[in-house]
């Protein structure tokens, strides 16, 4: 029971963090057609959408695609339906990291926390997200 509710909570959180609505997807595949890291991914960008829609978050969180996405945001730029696959991926990444430990990070703490093991994608994506 707790597992189901956790999945639901995570799916809702992905929608909230990403601000994307997977229901808008018309399955055209332009995200996967655009993606420069496509070959590296086990779950492809267009599949991310249905994984979130189906609440298949566990598989998503375990996917290596999370750490292969370059955060180039080409899929966001070119998606005709404004579904923002990269934002979904980014949100899944954040969930994974949040589950590991604290939810929040203050900028002053970053230098001390810098971890050579921390995936670069997370940093790049965060910087791009908060660049304004």
């Amino acid at each position: 029971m707790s597992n189901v509710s956790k999945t639901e909570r995570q799916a809702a959180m992905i929608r909230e963090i990403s601000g994307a609505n997977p229901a808008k997807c018309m399955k055209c595949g332009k995200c996967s057609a655009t993606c420069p890291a496509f070959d590296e991914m086990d779950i492809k960008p267009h599949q991310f959408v249905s994984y979130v829609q189906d609440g298949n978050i566990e598989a998503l969180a375990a996917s290596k695609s999370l750490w292969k996405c370059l955060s180039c945001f080409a899929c966001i730029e070119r998606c005709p339906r404004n579904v923002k696959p990269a934002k979904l991926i980014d949100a899944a990444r954040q969930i994974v990291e949040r589950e590991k430990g604290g939810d929040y990070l203050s900028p002053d703490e970053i230098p001390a926390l810098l971890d050579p093991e921390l995936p670069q994608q997370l940093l790049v994506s965060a910087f791009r997200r908060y660049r304004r």
Partner: protein
Amino acid sequence: MQRIGVFVCHCGSNIAATVDVKKVVEMAAREPSVVHAEDYPYMCSEAGQAKIAQAVAEKGLTGIVVCSCSPRMHEATFRKAAERAGINPFMVEIANIREHCSWIHKNIEEGTEKAIILARAAIAKVNLNAPLFPGESRVTKRALVIGGGIAGIQSALDIADAGYEVDIVEKTPSIGGRMAQLDKTFPTLDCSACILTPKMVEAAAHEKIRIYTYSEVEKISGFVGDFTVDIRKKARSIDATKCTGCGVCQEKCHSKKSLSEFNRGLGTRSAIYTPFAQAIPNVPVIDREACIKFKTGKCGVCAKVCAAGAIDYEQKDEIITEKYGAIVVATGFDTIKLDKYDEYAYNQSKDVITSLELERVMNAAGPTKGHLERLSDGKHPEHIVFVQCVGSRCSDERGKPYCSKICCMYTAKHAMLIRDKYPDVKVTVFYIDVRTPGKNFDEFYRRAVEEYGVNYIKGQVGKVAPQPDGSLLVQASDLLDNKQIKLKADMVVLATAIEPDPSVRPLATMLTASIDTNNFLTEAHPKLRPVESPTAGIFLSGVCQGPKDIPETVAQAGAAAVKAIGLLAKDKLTTNPCTAKADELLCNGCSTCANVCPYGAISYETKLINDHGIREDRRVAVVNNALCQGCGACTVACPSGAMDLQGFSNRQIIAEVDAICR
């Protein structure tokens, strides 16, 4: 004192499931002046209408309230029923207890309470209703068709064949429109020009049809049956009565570098030109921006070579003012601009073209004389990639949210034609969905796949990258195979979304015809009145109303013509008596109402007014009932409360509000 009858409709379960109709009857019966109240399952049925007649006869009703659906649905029905029963039709009011009540409520108690309030308001209004009598206005028996493509031509022919005069106004130098630019038509593959030009010739030769090409509508005033239209006939710089259409001027013209609009900018034309060989009229125009004579004063070679002496550099624009009873809008479409779609490299490579450009490339009269070749280097292509849904079905600001409807079929056509003529060329089509609802349409698409070997791949193209060797790298999804694929192509053809021709926006403003967020003209009812604008006397033909192919366009053009004919066949139109009226005793002649009136229906007269014994000359507002459309703007603007809308007087509206708030 009125004697009012209230009739509450169940509309089957549409109303009765959410509104306690018996309770509404019971409460309505207690209202002042109500002498009769009853309910019935279907008031609009003959039996229901008979109940109204019976109550009028038995109870001597003077006013009627029907609690039913929206007045847009059945007000006319019940007004006619009242008229037959001997009551002035404007003594009928509808309380909308369906759309405004039962359909939007779930709770029966709330629904019933609201239905009672709505009934009460309608009763309060009828208490103040007075009989109104419609006037008459005349009908000018001539139609205007705006746009000379296949839609406009068909509408004009149908109206003219019924015996009415028609004028076609076309902004380009020739009629024919987009269809003239097409090479072949789906699903029969007949040559577009071969089936279009006979219609163009028929329109030009028809004694009831006048064609104004190179002309635009500049001003429209009036109303249904009596429009007055200014048409700007742009200076052709040619005397059409003298020109023989020999074409020598175009051959000799020294300015030959202008991009041909007809060939979608893929070829050039001379400054003096007819857009295409079968142009109607076969009279050229001088493009004054490109003409050396107009730019420098020198040259003038066309005048020298013209044996007929038809060249007239001094010609001026002419304004033609004409009256029309009906207007058919047939302004057609254009493809969207692809500036925001950098990923397809449309602006980077000459070998990435739109489907409409491919029509010109495939056409014998086109820039390549019908040879399929790369526009960059003239080489024969080995592999052509088609991309569907470019700018269609996009919810972002780059494209259009709608399906352009024609692309699936013309892409199948292009793919088939190429494979038929050049079996060595490989053709790949990237699609999201293949949409082929239409007679013989899916069979056509399947033929492209099964008989012509066209390779259809489900997935979008992510990017097109021009390569140093001149080829195009196409990166796309193959969703059914869950792969990303990279292909080498020699040409890429983009099935570009279509949008209403930009000229429709200012035209809609002139016509006071409504358009939707995509600039398509709105129909009066999406299902039941699909070829009429909500503005009376304006009819819609072709893509200006929504994306459609040629057979649908021709069918709609005929339907629009029938509606126009139905209007022109009348000698008089009944006018709406719900017009504004000024109370001369209250009017202070301030002109506020005249300033806000969108129809120019209000003027001023100096009149001898007897104001409670004081006789003096006063400037007072006078409403022209033929022009007034009953919008009510003046009644709101009038500072002294002198303006009132008949049938919707200030007193009546306040009475309704009071009844609701009671």
